[in-house]
């Protein structure tokens, strides 16, 4: 047990150190969210005045949307790292060492959680600059960040699974191109649910990105809707667990295919 802990620590340490060595990359990943917040948010400011929109300002409404969209967008690339490590032989170097197999997987999940949390927190601050307020307070922000971590876990596990099984960069790029915008627009990221066309609303009910929005917005509201937080948060957690299990299985299948 203690070996698992030590190995997980060191494998995570390696990944976070790589992340910190590349602050430029972190800044780059914030360019897109900033555009959505300041330009898109500025352009569509009056949307909030639509009857039935139900938010104090569009900035308030938009921040959770940009947080979850960015969580999906950055985690979709996890498979690229997996392919790099396979091609470089790094993964095999770990597999011939006594390192616990689960430590390798844990490190991936923890790194993903830390980087998504940092990214989401920065977006929340950027949102403040864009004029958003968070009536739900610190607790609401924490729930939003946890929801974005769970959502990120779903997509990083999906991407890693693809990386392990298909081992082609094109697949990862395709995944990102085909999923990100549809998932975003088939959710309440930019437009209140009550004002969506029916068919989009029906699809959005099954969209994990939408679950994380319901979770985050539920907690950030003036009067938090804890029931919605629990229900949608529960679905997110369940799907994240399922996807991590799937990527664990695909790791086994990789080991068989070496």
């Amino acid at each position, binding site marked *: 047990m203690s070996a698992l802990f030590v190995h997980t620590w060191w494998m995570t340490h390696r990944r976070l150190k790589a992340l910190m*060595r590349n602050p430029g990359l972190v800044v780059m990943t914030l360019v897109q969210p900033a555009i959505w917040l300041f330009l898109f948010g500025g352009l569509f400011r009056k949307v909030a005045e639509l009857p039935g929109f139900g938010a104090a300002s569009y900035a308030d409404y938009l921040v959770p949307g940009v947080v979850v969209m960015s969580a999906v967008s950055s985690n979709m690339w996890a498979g690229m790292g997996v392919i790099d490590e396979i091609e*470089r*032989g790094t993964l*095999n170097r770990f597999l011939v*060492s006594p390192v616990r197999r689960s430590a390798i997987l844990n490190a991936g999940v923890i790194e993903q959680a830390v980087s998504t949390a940092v990214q989401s927190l920065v977006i929340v601050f950027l949102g403040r600059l864009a004029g958003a307020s968070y009536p739900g307070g610190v607790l609401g922000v924490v729930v939003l960040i946890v929801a974005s971590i769970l959502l990120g876990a779903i997509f990083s596990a999906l991407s890693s699974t693809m990386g392990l099984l298909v081992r082609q960069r094109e697949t990862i790029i395709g995944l990102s191109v085909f999923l990100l915008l549809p998932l975003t627009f088939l959710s309440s990221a930019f437009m209140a649910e009550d004002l969506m066309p029916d068919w989009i609303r029906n699809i959005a009910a099954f969209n994990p990105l939408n679950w994380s929005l319901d979770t985050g917005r539920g907690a950030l509201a003036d009067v938090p809707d804890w029931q919605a937080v629990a229900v949608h948060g529960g679905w997110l957690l369940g799907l994240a667990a399922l996807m991590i299990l799937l990527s664990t299985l695909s790791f086994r299948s990789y*080991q068989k295919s*070496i």
Partner: protein
Amino acid sequence: MQNTATNAVEAESIVKTYPGGVKALDGLSVTVRPGEVFGLLGPNGAGKSTTIKILTTLVRPDSGTASIAGHDVLSRPDRVRRVIGVVSQRSGADPMASGRDNLVLQAHLYGMRGAQVERRVSELLDRFDLGDAAGRQVRTYSGGMQRRLDVALGLVHRPRVLFLDEPTTGLDPEARAAMWEEIARLAGDDSLAILLTTHYLDEADRLARRLAIVDGGRVVAEGTPEGLKAELRGDAVHLELREAPDERRVRSLVEALPGVREIVFDGRRLSARADDGAAAVPIALAALDQAGVPVAAVTVARPSLDDVYLRHAGRRFAHTDEPVTAGAGGAR
């Protein structure tokens, strides 16, 4: 506790078939004794890398048994992993991390702690001449430096058996020579056995105390380089004639000499095999001189591993005009 007589590697009748029916190993058996450098020699696709993957617990064989320093590869992979060091074809070092970080991580994964890690890492950085570059990202290293770091990574935990999978492939001649020196130095350590794969004949000849020639997923010949060459019984003799010869006449002349056989002409070049090359040359020169066939040059070469390989892999010389070309390893 291991007794010192335990073989470093013992593999018996290993079979491995990959999906799609590709039979990578077809009953391969190999034994590496403690402290020796053993070479697996064979062309690409012969099964060398698959053998390494199975012995290093990466891949499970379909059938057969294998043990490393007495630990069973199939039932106790965890123990095997503690006693092996692996330097694979692909580097495996993290290019975004520094050389030192790579070594520190490796040391921790093998259960070292604190000051012990610091000491071992500094020791290896010094030994592999990476001290100045220790803090630099590995992606800035030259090919030779990366390879030295790979070997250092494989040695962090003082393994009993070191696997070197094509250690010099892709290196420039200078880095290759340096790597050879390093392997020779490692060979001096009697507590470390080395299993080396290569498709370079000269590399196997130079570094391996014993070697196995692998072809089609099995061992076709095994022994010391000298022993294998001696089995061929005969030196290669090449004569270069001053002018194009009357082949039939010269052939009958040379054939009549004692202990000379396998005569092949190629233009003005005549190649033959002789039981004792040094003794055959003066006799052949005298006979040709007497018959009025002037000779421009003569060379004698001991059989090379090239000859051994071709003999055991069951393939013929594709080009008789390119006889023994195994460079440094060919002679003596």
